[in-house]
């Protein structure tokens, strides 16, 4: 058995001290043109060239002397090295090191920028500054991380969370990145709601924009005018949240608890709309139900009615969003429905409950976390949706598109965009709090350590019939939509020339093999490879951050946990347009200068999509009995090992959901991406929108179809890799029947 804690903690301490020194002595301090991984900087004048030099070399050359104080927190932790973890001085040294080092980095980062001092009063105080400072690079980044983790180790040594280094480190890490990449840009942007035209702050300006009739008017209820944007968004979101949860539950039940033979097919179908770029569904709906859509024409010919534009506005928008977001509800609910302990249902059955009563009084209440989560997801997704309202909105204005037009449209009004963002945030936050109240503190433990060997009962007949019927209808509808998309990609010119052709695919994806090798001659290749690259980098990072956060929220208790959860969920409640704009404002200038890089895209994806990993993780983890953790701890494993060996393997459905969703959303995101792309990093979706704006529908649809197939491939691959955990549930009677 391990003898003392000394041997456990020193490796971590050693690691982070080394990281700190390496980043100070070896890594380039500032951002390197062309990226660190190109290696250009190694041959181009490193380590003495000002642009590539590590901090140590800069100081030695007499440059950037404000970095010198960093030597103090670099040397201090060496004194902690020889001490016992329980020595109070150990903790104090580390906390001081981390706090001083980290704050100094932040202070010097924000005070000194491209033009010397960033603030008037600083140059008044210290005189003009000769030096300049660009965005921090890997040197600065790793030094900051080193200080952060030394700080968290110090806090752990003080006794926080029983001295658990992993947990405290994880909390610190998540707080730091969420603070830097969610709070900072958003607060920055919200402050701009108060900015008047001449650059100063005013509350009156804010108030006048906030209480505008365009936001809150009710003329559609009392009269025939338009309602305020805020009411529109709210109504739509509530309906969509409700409908997607119901449909998601229906599909989850069909897949796990019916005798239906083609359950796998149903499973596959519900994933389709996730892997579709958002506006494509809207486009397909227009192809079918628009003014000159095929179905509209069919019915108008049949009944002799005039074709109308009924699709544009609330009806079309609701259909498109429900089509788009049901699969997310499904993915969350399938994990929950499968996780309900069969022996509880069997117990209820033996207590004379009919299958319907069992479902209503035992199964459904046990699924409440999943249902609440699914509703929340649907609500927020609808609120933040940008692509569909852009195409199908008609006269039905919603908050997300209004924000976009406030920035991009003729009336550039940063303040108005910020006010709309505040309203939008208000809604999503309210939904968040309401859901937490409903869930309460009940225990939904169902995967206990007792190897549940019960069998899921089939659905009661009264339930099975409508469920299967609805599932069948919705599946058919979905298939038709996709049929439309594929068909549309092979049509020469929709609505004008219906000859079938592959012309659009050729234009986008032609390849030529020459003596020089493969030549990617198609116009779409550039954005395609960029998108794949960025999505592949972002997905595992997103899943990792999401699941670690979910672990902290379900398995640990610490002060400020509620605020912590709120902070991590916040980025999901913010629409992509707001993220995009706030990132541009915040990260266009030092200390974190990221616009035009691939990193800003990856980071925006991580924080936009992280909450789904968190939600899926929470829903799954809250069904793992805490005694599994505790027994692992008493057997000598620490939190990190428990997390890796016990919790993660039992979370495979959640990991899969997180990976799939992150990858796919990164591939299909549009609302944030449209602000963050650059010449070097063009993403597929913004390229497609560009084609649509040029009326090149054929190419746009062909590209979209290709994307869909690529992602199908990726999802299939992921499913194979992560696999399904064997926890020994005997197959339900359904499987035996088929």
């Amino acid at each position, binding site marked *: 058995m391990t003898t003392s804690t000394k041997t456990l903690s020193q490796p971590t301490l050693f690691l982070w001290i080394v990281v700190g020194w390496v980043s100070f002595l070896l890594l380039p301090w500032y951002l390197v043109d062309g990226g660190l991984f190109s290696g250009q900087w190694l041959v181009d004048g490193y380590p003495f060239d000002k642009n590539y030099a590590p901090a140590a070399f800069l100081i030695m050359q007499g440059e950037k002397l404000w970095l010198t104080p960093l030597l103090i927190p670099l040397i201090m932790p060496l004194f902690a090295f020889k001490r016992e973890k329980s020595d109070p001085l150990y903790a104090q040294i580390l906390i001081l090191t981390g706090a001083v080092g980290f704050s100094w980095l932040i202070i010097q980062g924000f005070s000194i920028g491209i033009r010397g001092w960033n603030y008037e009063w600083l140059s008044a105080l210290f005189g003009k500054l000769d030096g300049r400072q660009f965005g921090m690079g890997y040197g600065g980044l790793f030094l900051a991380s080193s200080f952060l983790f030394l700080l968290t180790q110090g806090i752990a040594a003080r006794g926080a969370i029983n001295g658990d280094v992993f947990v405290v480190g994880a909390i610190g890490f998540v707080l730091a990145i969420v603070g830097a990449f969610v709070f900072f840009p958003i607060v920055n942007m919200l402050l701009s709601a108060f900015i008047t035209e001449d650059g100063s702050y005013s509350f009156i300006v804010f108030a006048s924009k906030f209480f505008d009739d365009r936001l809150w008017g009710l003329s559609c209820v009392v009269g025939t005018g338009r309602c305020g944007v805020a009411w529109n968004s709210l109504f739509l979101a509530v309906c969509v949240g409700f409908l997607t949860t119901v449909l998601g539950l229906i599909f989850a039940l069909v897949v796990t608890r019916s005798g239906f033979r083609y359950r796998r097919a149903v499973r596959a179908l519900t994933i389709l709309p996730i892997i579709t770029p958002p506006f494509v569904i809207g486009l397909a709906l227009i192809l079918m139900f628009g003014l000159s859509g095929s179905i509209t024409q069919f019915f108008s010919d049949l009944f002799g009615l005039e074709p109308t534009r009924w699709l544009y506005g609330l009806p079309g928008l609701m259909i498109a969003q429900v089509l788009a977001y049901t699969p997310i509800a499904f993915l969350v609910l399938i994990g929950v429905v499968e996780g309900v302990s069969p022996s509880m249902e069997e117990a209820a059955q033996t207590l004379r409950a009919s299958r319907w009563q069992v479902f209503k009084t035992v199964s459904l209440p046990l699924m409440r976390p999943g249902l609440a989560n699914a509703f929340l997801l649907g609500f927020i997704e609808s609120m933040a949706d940008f692509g569909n309202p852009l195409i199908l909105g008609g006269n039905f204005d919603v908050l997300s598109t209004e924000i976009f037009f406030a920035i991009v449209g003729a009336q550039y009004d940063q303040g108005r965009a910020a006010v709309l963002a505040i309203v939008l945030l208000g809604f999503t936050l309210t939904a968040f709090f309401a859901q937490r109240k409903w869930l309460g503190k009940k225990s939904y433990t169902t995967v206990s*350590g007792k190897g549940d060997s019960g069998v899921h009962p089939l659905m009661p007949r009264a339930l099975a019939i409508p469920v299967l019927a609805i599932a069948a209808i919705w599946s058919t509808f979905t298939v038709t939509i996709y049929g439309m998309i594929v068909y549309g990609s092979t049509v020469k010119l929709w609505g004008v020339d219906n000859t079938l052709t592959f012309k659009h695919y050729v234009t986008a994806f032609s390849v030529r093999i020459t003596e020089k090798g493969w030549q990617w001659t198609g116009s779409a290749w550039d954005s395609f490879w960029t998108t794949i690259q960025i999505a592949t980098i972002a997905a595992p990072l997103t899943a990792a951050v999401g699941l670690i956060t979910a672990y902290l929220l379900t398995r640990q208790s610490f002060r400020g946990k509620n605020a912590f959860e709120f902070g991590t969920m916040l980025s999901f409640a913010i629409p992509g347009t707001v993220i995009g704009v706030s990132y541009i404002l915040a990260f266009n200038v030092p200390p974190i200068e990221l616009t035009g890089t691939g990193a800003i895209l990856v980071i925006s994806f991580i924080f936009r999509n992280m909450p789904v990993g968190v939600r899926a993780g929470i829903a799954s983890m809250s069904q793992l009995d805490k005694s599994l953790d505790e027994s692992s701890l008493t057997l000598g494993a620490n939190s990190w090992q428990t997390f890796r060996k016990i919790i993660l393997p039992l979370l495979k459905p959640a990991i899969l959901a997180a990976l799939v969703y992150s990858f796919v959303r990164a591939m299909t995101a549009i609302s944030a991406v449209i602000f963050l792309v650059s010449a070097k990093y063009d993403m597929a979706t913004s390229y497609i929108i560009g084609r649509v704006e040029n009326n090149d529908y054929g190419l746009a649809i062909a590209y979209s179809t290709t994307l869909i197939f690529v992602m199908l491939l990726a999802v299939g691959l992921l499913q194979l890799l992560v696999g399904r955990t064997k926890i020994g549930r005997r197959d339900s009677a359904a499987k035996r029947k088929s």
Partner: protein
Amino acid sequence: MTDINSKAATVSFRNVTKMYGSDVTAIDQINLEIEAGKLVTLLGPSGCGKTTTLRMVAGLEMATKGQIFIGDVDVTNLPATDRDVSMVFQSYALFPHMTVLENVSYGLGFSGFNKVETLERAHAGLDLVGLKDYSERLPSALSGGQQQRVAVARALVLEPQVLLFDEPLSNLDAKLRRQVREEIREIQQNLGLTVVYVTHDQEEALAVSDEIVVMRNASIAQMGTPRQLYDTPADAFVADFIGEANLLPCEVTAVNGEVANVSLGDFHTTLPSRGVGQGAAIIAIRPSRLVIGAAEGFNAVVSKATYVGSRMEYTLVSGFSTMFAVRDDVDNPLSIGQEIVVGFAQTGPVLLPVC
């Protein structure tokens, strides 16, 4: 073949208090000494603090005040990972995604044993609990009793200083309970382990323990051997909690040193005074110690007679109280309404203060 050895240590609680928030006191200043190699049971009704005490030994809860020692080491601030204490959970907490062998080997991996040793020890552990051929099964393919044995094996192979059991028999059927509790006791005695055992079943406690700690309302009511607790409970609560006890109201008429004169209605007798003063008091007496048809005693009437196979159980009504008596003579049962004389056995009645 590798043997499982024992590194049994003492457990010591010094003025330990555990509070949740600022108003809920789960444990109130308890002092406890558990000798090495003994099986000590924490017994009490729900909410008395026994499970909290157990978890504090494990390191899953931290004491708010006071100190906890295992052996000579102050472990008050040491988390569960770093203590040499293993626990068998009420729900067994077997890892559902690992086989039986992997479950048992789990802790060995963190103790620094190489692969060969780990396997040997794991197999030895399974052998000890009689599950040698089950190593490749998943927990869901085992019965409740088998799962529990895997949980025990998993805890044992680490040769812990202290082994903890949290109501291990509560999920087993009655027949299995007797068998399993005897197996647990046997393993404990063979290996000389220090075991802390939590249960609310007093018969179980009496059967397996070297010492029993009866807890009530966050503190210790009495600690002693099973016999001590059964024959000489400290107060009415302990008397009633351990075994059946008749609590008969009586009057102490005089106290002469160690001896008290006690009267129950017309019946007079002398009993060790045990610190009880003159005035109203309670006599606690076990049903088996009431002698039916004694030469000297008080009058009573049989109101109920129940046959439970091994003996007869009677409810008797006397002038001052109703009581419950048992008799082995099943062939000559008393009839309802029969009048008898009831006396006390030599060792049996205990004088208790009125609480």
